[in-house]
């Protein structure tokens, strides 16, 4: 039953956006976040919304999938909106009632702060929905590899990510098994207060750690026996190559950036 858990939130369809180089997607996501923070008017955010909508269309990702990413953050977004709405001082008072005072400035700040948060989440969701975790870690490795000069372990970091991704389903399955085995011995994972529940986790966590360490030892030996000796002199099966679409994507993002800069100057 654990087999159908999708990894991360990757949305496995094929599209021009999915096929973009992960390095480009990572960089463009960062640029996008900068753009979101630069926008200062509702028109600007409307343009950004249009851009996001178009990208989602091109990526074959339903728009509601993007909104789903907002769900866990909805309380923070609402809180941001309300706090800014009520506690921002301003000139133009719209509503004055008891201790509540809503100003135009307050409303605008609340709206922009929440919009930024929303687009931040949507932008990163677009990245993770259209990029598999593996190519994401590939992209990160290559982008970080210049840092090797200062002994930053870019290759090791990416290898760790790959192995973690590989073992998540295995360990999930194992958790399920150990949980059932302890339940068969009368363990109770569901009732009791916080403390007794935390204590009830011990029979689950200890075997899980023991097993994870055993697996790690086995895996290290298996990797060594297949001549693994770090990133040095290593070639790769997957070589990232920039295509025309990558340049088009860069162009589109540049256009959006230009629009938002113009918006900042003229509006």
């Amino acid at each position: 039953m654990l087999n159908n858990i999708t990894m991360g939130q990757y949305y496995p369809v094929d599209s021009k956006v999915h096929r973009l180089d992960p390095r480009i997607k990572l960089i463009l996501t960062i640029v996008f976040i900068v753009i979101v923070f630069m926008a200062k008017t509702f028109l600007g955010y409307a343009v950004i919304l249009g851009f996001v909508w178009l990208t989602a269309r091109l990526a074959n990702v339903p728009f509601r999938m993007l909104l789903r990413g907002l769900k866990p953050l909805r309380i923070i977004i609402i809180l941001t909106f309300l706090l800014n709405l009520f506690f921002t001082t301003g000139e133009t008072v719209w509503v004055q009632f008891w201790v509540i005072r809503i100003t135009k400035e307050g409303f605008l700040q609340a709206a922009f702060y929440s919009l930024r948060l929303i687009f931040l989440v949507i932008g990163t969701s677009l990245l993770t929905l259209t990029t598999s975790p593996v190519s994401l870690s590939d992209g990160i490795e290559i982008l970080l590899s210049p840092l090797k000069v200062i002994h930053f372990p870019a290759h090791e970091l990416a290898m760790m990510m790959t192995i973690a991704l590989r073992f998540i389903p295995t360990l999930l399955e194992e958790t399920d098994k150990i949980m059932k085995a302890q339940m068969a011995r009368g363990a109770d994972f569901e009732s009791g207060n916080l403390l007794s529940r935390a204590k009830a986790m011990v029979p689950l966590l200890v075997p899980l750690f023991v097993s994870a360490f055993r697996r790690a030892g086995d895996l290290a030996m298996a990797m060594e026996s297949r001549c693994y000796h770090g990133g040095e002199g290593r070639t790769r099966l997957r070589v990232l190559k920039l295509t025309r679409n990558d340049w088009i994507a860069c162009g589109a993002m540049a256009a959006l950036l230009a629009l938002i800069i113009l918006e900042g100057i003229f509006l």
Partner: protein
Amino acid sequence: MPIEVSHLTHCYSEGSALRTVALDDVSFRIENGEFVGIIGHTGSGKSTLVQHLNGLLKPTSGQVLVDGEDLNGEHVNRRALRQHIGLVFQYPEYQLFEETVAKDIAFGPKNQGLTAAEIDERVRYAMECVHLDYQKYAERSPFELSGGQMRRVAIAGVLAMKPSVLILDEPTAGLDPRGRDRILGMLEELHARENVTILMVSHSMDDMARLASRLIVMSDGKVVADGTPREIFMQEDMMTSIGLDIPEAARLCARLRAKGYDLPADLFRPEQLKEQLLRIWKEGSAC
């Protein structure tokens, strides 16, 4: 404590496109003191079935009755019923977690709410059942033991709950012949001495030929045969058709019978064949 399974059906991922039927209208009844083998290849539904017998999985439809009471009924004390049915999973040594062997074995009895004295008595009893010397092993860390010993500690952890029915999923998987013989000998003894009902899932037909008094054969979530080893091992064609072997002795018997030798059809243990073959040889050399 008899167990009755009636029209048990279980579907995974019910209501989605991934819906798979793991058990399909399974019915049987297990009486006190039986030693039942459940055989079938991987994916035949054995493990799903076993998890129903102790209430870890709930039927999509159908019932599991323990001592006449529906294990999933509304007013049933499930935990109390569960205690009577000990379940040993595959590779049970992976569930050990305590600092000492004794503490780990005590986990089950402790959950049953027994007193310290009772728990201690249970631990000693269980260790004796699995042939682990209390003096020598009780205070050792389970993680320092050999694989076979760890498995015995894990089985003791279930036996300490004094179940009247013991269910084991592949108890000998991954063990060498010595470890396997230890476990099987221990089960045989437990069955004879304590009159514990045993249900054992296994791939090894030879182990089954040696121990079980009844075999339930599963394929594609269904029970395809249910009978004594004699009856089951006579049906070589049926067994082959669902991807299972029969013991070599049974195969030898079938081959020789097909050639025209005068042998009973229902031999499946080497010692039975030995006598028959000696008879044939002596008759042959007599004339």
